[in-house]
Structures are given as C-alpha cells and as structure tokens.
C-alpha cells in the first residue's frame, strides 16, 4: 500500500492501488454485477408513471400559480400604485375646485349684492337669511 502518512487539505492523494486491489478482492462479485438493470429501470419508469411516448406528470394548478407568481405580484403592485395616484389626484382636484371656485350660492348672492350696491337693507337681509336658525317669535 502507498505511504498514506501524509495528507493534503487541498489535493486528493494518489489512489492506493494495493489497497484498492485488496478491497476489490474482498467484495467479489462486484456490487451491481448481480443487479437486473432492466428490472430496476422498469421499476423507476413505473414509479414515475411513465409509458412510452407519454408526457411526464401532468401540470397541476399550483404549477401555473408558481409560474405566474412573479407577474402577478408585479401587476398587483402596479395596480396599487395606480390606485394611489388616482386617489391623490382626485383629492387635489377637489381642493383646487374649493379654492378657485366660490360656492354657487355665494356667487349668486355676491352678484345680487353687487347689483344693488346702495341697498344696505337688502344686503343685511340676504346675509342674515343664511342663518338657518329658527327662533321662536316673541312679540315682546
């Protein structure tokens, strides 16, 4: 047998032919020499559910899910971003409308008041009429 007192972490040692001969002589017949390979091959085929020319296992529904999961996640994120952007835009449009356009009622009142600049009583009445409080009539 070879001198096996030295060993290297980085390289395989040379094969020890004498040891191999000894080990091989002790395991005659060689492992596998008595195996019926065709039977083993057939068993593997049967286990895999194979017939000649048949496709391998049919695809299951989760295979489709797994295949498309990346695209589904990306589409979901894109949809969420689009929804968030639309929501933000609609909020800011409302704010712009409120800031730039006076309420229709206020605009109408303003036009009436402007049409009668000297009618202080009318102005007072119109402004007072915006108070929607009902008060009890007390003649005293």
């Amino acid at each position, binding site marked *: 047998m070879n001198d096996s007192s030295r060993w290297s972490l980085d390289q395989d*040692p040379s094969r020890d032919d004498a040891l191999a001969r*000894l*080990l091989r002589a002790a395991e005659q017949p060689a492992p*596998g020499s008595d195996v019926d390979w065709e039977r083993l091959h057939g068993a593997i085929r049967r286990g*895999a559910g194979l017939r000649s020319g048949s496709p391998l296992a049919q695809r299951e529904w989760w295979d489709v899910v797994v295949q498309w999961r990346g695209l589904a996640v990306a589409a979901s994120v894109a949809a969420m971003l689009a929804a968030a952007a639309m929501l933000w835009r609609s909020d800011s449009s409302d704010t712009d409308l409120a800031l730039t356009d006076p309420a229709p009622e206020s605009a109408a009142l303003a036009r009436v008041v402007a049409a009668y600049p000297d009618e202080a009583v009318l102005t007072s009445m119109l402004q007072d009429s915006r108070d929607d409080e009902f008060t009890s009539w007390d003649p005293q």
Partner: protein
Amino acid sequence: MSPGSAGPRVVGEGPPEPPDPLEAAAISRVQAGDAEAFDLIVRRYMRTAYAVAFRVLGHREDAEDVVQEAFLAALANIRTFDTSRRFGPWLYRIVVTRGLNFRKARSRRAAEPLEDAGVASADAGPAAAAERAGLKDTVTTALGRLPERQRMVVQLFELDGFSGAEIAAMLGVSPGTVRWYLHEARQALRRLLAHLQETAG
C-alpha cells in the same frame, strides 16, 4: 468523473465542471415533461447511483429501493434544478441522503451487518475458496471497524473512482474533510490489513 476508472488522479479545488451540453439539453426536456429524456437520464446514471447507494447501505435490495426513490425524488424536483450545473452530483446527494435515512430506519428495525456480497467461486477449488473467504472476512471486519463516513469515503474513492470533491458534494462536507476521512481510513486499514499486504501485492 468516471467511477470505475482506477487510474491515479490528483484533483484540486476549482470551479465545478460544466455539464455536458447533451445532458443539459436532456434535463431541459425532462423539465418540459419529456418522458423519453427522463429515460435517457435514468439509463445514464442508474448504475453509478446504485454504486453510491450500495456504499451507503451495503445491501443490494435496499440500494435498489433507494436508487428508485432517488430518481423519483429528482423527477419531482426537476423544475428546481439549475441546468448550468451537472446532474450527477445533485442526484448522488439525493441518493446519499435517502440512503442514510433508509439506513437509520433500518437500524431501528434491526441491526444488520453489511451484506455478504461475495460468494467464493466453486471453480477455484476448495483451498482458493477458503482463502478468498478468509480474505473477505478479514477485509469486511476491518471495514466494519471504520466509522461509517470513513468507510464510505475510502470505498467511493478507491473502488468507485470518485474524486474528493465529488464525495464531498455527496456527503455535504468540505473536500478537506473528505481527504481527512480518507487519510484516517487508509491509516486504519493499513494497520488492520498489514498482514495481508504481501499476499495482496
């Protein structure tokens, strides 16, 4: 890797060997559901997978069962296999893992020695047959005294022709660890079989 080729070989660390293009194509076809391609892969790797399983289990029928299981497990997970890598090391790792589990389950059922695989040839005459039986007993006993991993490593390296890196991939340890196991196993066998050295040489 060429299991069975017994020529001395020095293998250092390095990038893993690229797969054979034909093999990569066959694996891609298996991933697409091609049964004939799976057949090719089985035929190509069945014998080596059996050799590995036998080293783990030391029993013919158990090794056949584990090979069958390993191919079915490989097929079930074939879509996760990276075709830029070699199929063999992946399959052998499955074989070893399943083999060790099988062995553990078997040892719970009953402690069995390694199979008596050898049968002395009747044609060789009674004296030669007795001599061979004695040699076999001595070597089997010596191998049985080794820790399981050392025994597997020395057999896979010296008898089946795997490199340290290939055995490391199978066992899930570093190549350096495999080389240490090999060194220890050789030392022990050298000590235990010293009296056979001259007759074998």
